[in-house]
């Protein structure tokens, strides 16, 4: 029996896996506590250094330009060229059915939370940092959730009408006629080339913002996901670095277009915002700013 004991011991050991010694604080599904963490240290020179460079040299100044220069340009445009005024009397056409307006305003509410809180985070030092900015980060998350809710319906509901059309080139060449006071027929269907640009920036840019934002929020995710996409050479921290770089630089573009959208709907075309509130656009406005769409509408009406 005594001779057998070592054998019994081996059998028992073979079947009972020994607990890993003292691994308690380290989570095996973690990307930030894994061997890749050490392996990625020499790779810091790639995306790590790039992020430090962008954050220390560009971010503050880029967003300051967006925050100051864009409104200044619009202010000058308003003073020099002036807004377009259309008669809101006469015939009106239903452009945006109620559900489209609801989707639009959910996304808009998201943006109204996202953009100012984003600026608060970037200029956190100016606002004193601490709990106030942590609160802004909560609002940023809520804004992102609202935008995410509206994202798919908004992409689908306007998809067809937002596809590029041949006259969009003409619109772009004359910048939609916004550089002159003259009231003339501008080539555009339901949406003009400017609106289309904004739409596609929201579709692709918004998707990337949601994706990178989600990755930054999750922070420590399982790298198994990466291997399914053949991204094994990228360690979790590099994904985070790429995400923050994309998130910040894309924000510059999106915020610029967001300000443009605000200016156009509130100031540059008087009363334009009304069409997103009650859904109707006036005949005068359609005839000039969406001339191709208007002609189609009229043709249709005549047929009936």
């Amino acid at each position, binding site marked *: 029996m005594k001779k057998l004991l070592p054998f019994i011991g081996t059998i028992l050991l073979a079947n009972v896996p020994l607990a890993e*010694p*003292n*691994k*308690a*604080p*380290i*989570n095996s599904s973690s990307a*930030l*506590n*894994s*061997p890749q*963490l*050490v*392996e990625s*240290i*020499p790779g*810091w*020179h790639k995306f*790590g250094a790039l*992020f*430090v460079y962008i*954050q*220390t040299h560009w971010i503050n100044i880029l967003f300051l330009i967006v925050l100051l220069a864009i409104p200044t340009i619009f202010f000058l445009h308003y003073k020099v060229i002036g807004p377009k005024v259309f008669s809101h009397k006469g015939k009106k056409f239903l452009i945006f059915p109620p559900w489209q307006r609801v989707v639009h305003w959910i996304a808009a509410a998201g943006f109204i939370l996202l953009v100012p809180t984003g600026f608060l*985070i*970037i*200029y*956190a*030092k100016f606002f*004193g*940092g*601490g709990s106030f*900015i*942590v609160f802004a*980060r*909560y609002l940023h*998350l809520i804004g992102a959730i609202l935008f995410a809710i509206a994202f798919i319906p908004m992409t689908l509901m306007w998809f067809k009408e937002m596809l590029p059309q041949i006259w969009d080139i003409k619109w772009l060449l004359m910048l939609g006629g916004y550089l002159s006071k003259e009231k003339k027929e501008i080539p555009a269907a339901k949406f003009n080339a400017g609106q289309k640009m904004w739409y596609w920036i929201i579709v692709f840019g918004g998707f990337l913002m949601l994706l990178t934002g989600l990755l*930054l*929020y999750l*922070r420590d995710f399982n790298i198994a996901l990466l291997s399914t996409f053949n991204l094994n050479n990228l360690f979790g*921290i590099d994904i*985070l*670095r790429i995400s*923050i770089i994309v998130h910040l630089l894309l924000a510059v573009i999106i915020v610029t277009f967001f300000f443009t959208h605000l200016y156009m709907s509130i100031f540059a075309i008087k009363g334009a915002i009304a069409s997103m509130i009650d859904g109707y656009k006036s005949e005068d406005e359609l005839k000039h700013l969406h001339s191709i769409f208007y002609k189609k509408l009229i043709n249709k009406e005549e047929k009936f």
Partner: protein
Amino acid sequence: MYEYARMKFYCDENRCIECNACTIACAEAHELPVGINRRKVITLNEGIEGKEFSTSIACMHCTDAPCSQVCPVECFYIREDGIVLHDKDKCIGCGYCLYACPFGAPQFPKDGAFGIRGKMDKCTLCAGGPLPTNSIEEFELYGQNRIAEGKVPMCAAVCSTNALIVGDADSVAEIIRARNAAKGKGTSSPYGWDIAYK
């Protein structure tokens, strides 16, 4: 000589036996919550003969610390002895320091109902924070201030093989040189040092 002290961490991969004593001692000494790993022991090439080694990793208190460069609230401050500390009252938990750090040192607790990143926590080289030295508040936010008491940081104090060393740059370099010489190896820079220290 004391004027020019510059604190550095060094973990000798030839000696580290992955006992995790430093990790546990650090977590216990500073009463860190679960999920906050100021120091971690990581094994590379596990199971590959001749190539496997372990190392203990935490904030290296870098020269020109990248974390302090990117922080949007500039809440980092670098002591004269090179220890990189930060102010949790100013921190907004944006995570930028983590993206900038070569060593994955900054840690974030989950905060509030939405589980967003809370205020950053990292190795202080056992030097506490900006609050009054050795006060209760300092201990609760940053952990022990052993440096102020003239003690060795907890992790290095418990390292049974003396793999983990901390001290001013010259003394650490002297030890590395002596160890390498004893093994008949030339001078080599420890892993990650070229990135941490300039």
